[in-house]
């Protein structure tokens, strides 16, 4: 309690805690695109990257540039939050010292960034998805090369083979097997895909959320796909997350969905909305240090957390926020 009061006091006094302290709790990062009050060019409530720890109840701290309409974020695994990226309309913001200093790594040729993904092994490799295509950097964002043209919502790097990438785009799901140099459309015939997620133990299994066409799955790296519709009453899905310790448990959220949960690897689903003020879910993340704890970022009602694998949810801060993406760093 004293600790919470202390943090609140620091915040009230205007102190900026830019780097998460070294504690045993995981750090939860969220990119906030907008709040209900945002008006371009005006004096606005903060948007951008926020972070939080599970014991901090509803307290979130801002880090990096303010009012940038942050669509996505990435944290280099194992960097203790030192290497982080925020994707925004202004470009891709980068810190390599835990948030003390930030730099926009892109120039005027790159804008409207909606996805950022990192090679899990090589910190110099960065991929961004924009309204105009995919760009690749091999020097941590100092220089960029366009490798795909089209509207891209999500990019993932295969955690077992960094040569392989998948992208959810307006033109369907695309795959690269040469570190993003070239891209080929997968066998999914649906356009307008919004998110792609890889099974934590079987790299050939992927789930895809679409705009208006529900959820699709592949078990052969994208060659063939099947629609997963048992128990699903909704069409548009922005986020899908596996439980990293038990991949049979999967969560999905989207437009007016609340949170769907599957206990059989995404074959059948059950919906829960208990505790949500709005049911538009844009981002879900499972705490790898305690997989009962699940986070959901909403479109317009901030952050929610479940302590019981998605059965019940409660508001944990960022009121009014549209949360683009959540990343949890153990």
């Amino acid at each position, binding site marked *: 309690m004293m600790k919470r009061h202390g943090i609140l006091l620091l915040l009230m006094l205007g102190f900026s805690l830019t780097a998460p302290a070294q504690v045993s709790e995981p750090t939860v990062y969220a990119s906030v*695109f*907008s709040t*209900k009050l945002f*008006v*371009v*060019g*005006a*004096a*606005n409530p903060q948007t*951008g990257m926020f972070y939080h720890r599970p014991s901090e109840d509803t307290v979130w701290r801002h880090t990096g*540039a*303010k*009012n*940038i*309409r942050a669509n996505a974020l990435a944290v280099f695994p194992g960097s203790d939050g030192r290497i982080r990226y925020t994707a925004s*309309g*202004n*470009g891709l*913001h*980068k810190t390599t010292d835990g948030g003390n*200093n*930030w*730099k*926009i790594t892109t*120039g*005027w040729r790159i*804008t*409207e960034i*909606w996805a950022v993904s990192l090679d899990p092994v090589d910190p110099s490799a960065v991929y961004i998805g924009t*309204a*105009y295509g995919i760009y690749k950097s091999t020097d941590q964002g100092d220089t960029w090369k366009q490798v795909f043209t089209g*509207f891209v919502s999500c990019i993932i790097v295969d955690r077992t083979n960094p040569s392989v990438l998948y992208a959810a785009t*307006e033109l369907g799901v695309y795959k690269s097997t040469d570190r993003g140099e070239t891209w080929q459309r997968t066998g999914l015939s649906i356009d307008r895909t919004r998110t792609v997620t890889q099974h934590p133990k079987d790299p050939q299994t992927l789930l895809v959320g679409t*705009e208006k066409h529900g959820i699709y799955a592949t078990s052969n790296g994208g060659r063939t796909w099947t629609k997963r519709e048992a128990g699903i009453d909704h069409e*548009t899905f*922005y986020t899908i997350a596996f439980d990293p310790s038990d991949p049979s448990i999967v969560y999905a959220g989207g*437009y007016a969905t609340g949170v769907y949960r599957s206990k059989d690897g995404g074959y059948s689903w059950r919906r829960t909305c208990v505790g949500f003020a709005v049911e*538009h879910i*844009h981002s879900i993340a499972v705490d790898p240090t305690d997989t009962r704890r699940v986070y959901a970022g909403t*479109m*317009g009602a901030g952050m929610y957390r479940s302590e019981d694998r998605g059965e019940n949810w409660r508001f944990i801060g960022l009121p009014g926020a*549209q949360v683009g993406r959540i990343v949890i760093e153990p």
Partner: protein
Amino acid sequence: MKTIGILGWMFLAVQPAIPQDFFSRAQKLLDVVRAEREISPYVIAAKIRTNNDRQTALILLDSLTRDRAIGGMFYCYSLIGAFLYTRDALPDSLHRKVRLAFRERTMYRGDTENHWVMYYTGLYLAAQTWPGEAREMWFNGKSSEENFREAEGWLNHWMHTTFTIGQGEFDSPTYITTFLTPMMVLHEFAADPVMKKKAQMMLDLLFADFAVEHLEGNYGGGHSRDYPEDIINPLGAPSTMWAWMYFGKPEFAQWEEARYRPRNRGGWETTFGALGSYRLPEIIRLIATDRTEAYAHTETKRVRNIIRFGAEKNPPSYKYSYVTQDYILGSLSGGILQPIQQHTWDVTFVSEKPNNSIFTLHPYYSGRELAMFFPEEIKFLADEVDRYHLVYTNPDKWNSSSPFERTFQYRNTLIVLYDIKKGEMQPHINGFFPKTLDERWVDCSGWIICRAGDVYVALYPLRPGAWIEEKVNWRWRSNALKNGVIVEVGSKREDGSFAGFRKSLGKTLIDTSAFDSHVSVRFRNRHGIEMKYIFDGVRLLNGKEIQLSDYGFFDGPFIQSETGSGRVTLRHKTRTRVLDFNKAEIIESK
């Protein structure tokens, strides 16, 4: 009545003199702005540069640098502009605070053409002002040199695009301010003579583009973007302030007449023009004001960046205007060229009364339209846009693009066709008819006949509609999905009496035999010209096909340019002024 008469006489008796030249108008503006106490970079600059209430100005500037919630493209260019105009009069402490703002504030770049012009102009001048500074000294973590190169690169890119394929946010009575003001500052303070010259050329181009569709302070014709308030009352738009100061029109004592006050912030942006050294070339003022001969003028612009649901990023957008001494009839070719705020066509007429415009539109909205241009989630876009623009989903709105609207214009005759898809949210069209018209009735021939002073407007609805009385206007609403209007405009100068104009409508021929099947109409106008148009199809003028792609970049008696050439020629009688962007050169002859 007697009281009104006396008040009117008193008003005339105390009416201030009308400023007759740029310098007196600029001085008048500065007199007004410097008396304000708003925390505004323009008020600060006016107070300090006219040495009026400097102490208050310093307090206002201090406040401007303290409010950390502010930060963005508007702030970025206007703060550095105010600083550069006043720096010699500022104490060191304010120098430091302004400098610090570019380190500690997030200057948000935004997502539209005007946002980027403001952002990169501000960044260019700030980086030029504080060269050689390390990345830690800037809000974006880039060094002075990196910021300067980036801003210079984009400004050059934008200027080249504008000179070759046109603006996306073209001919906007509201947003013209957000292009002219940054260019004023850039022209004033760019140290690089080439950039300074290019800024001057951009100002010439923007003013000339306005001038050719200008009439007594009104920005006539179709607009890429505008607010409903300005669409239904054209002289309330910010562009009127620029017309007043640079074209000398309308001739009124600014600020004494509420009708002309711009909607936002008093329109103080023109202060940077009043303080600056840019002078409008006389040829542009003549283009803006010489209406001795009526003329047709066509333009090619570009559609705003398309990011979804389109094969081409910036397809061309075509525009036609017919300009006379008394009115402008102008139209965009139709379809979705800009989301949210498009104004496809109108007739704007000279009038002593407000609401001097007539037009129709289909009040379309959709997440898909927004998603063509905005990257946000489609399902939330309409609600998001409604928060800023308030009326986007309103069935009664007065601005809209629509995929179900097309036009075909020849001089003072216009055909507007609508082919609204079944199941659309707004299955109707609206027409705006101001209450300030002197006459408006539906003739038994079917024509809606209007008179505004010496301007005559006739609309023939291709499907029936109903009249709804509103505060300042009559709304004509028609619920047929296949729909349209034919518009004929005339004037006392062109047609003689109003009775003569009405009689001449009897000479017209309207053939709608293929309307139900093809949304097609054949029309022979009062002058015997035959126009035939099928929705989204071929435009035939006296049997000959009109190709919009044949429209020049600018093509009319006053401005000529080929699309892609980068070279724009302004003409007025024996005067010419060539803006050659490729060589960053202006060639003038008299």
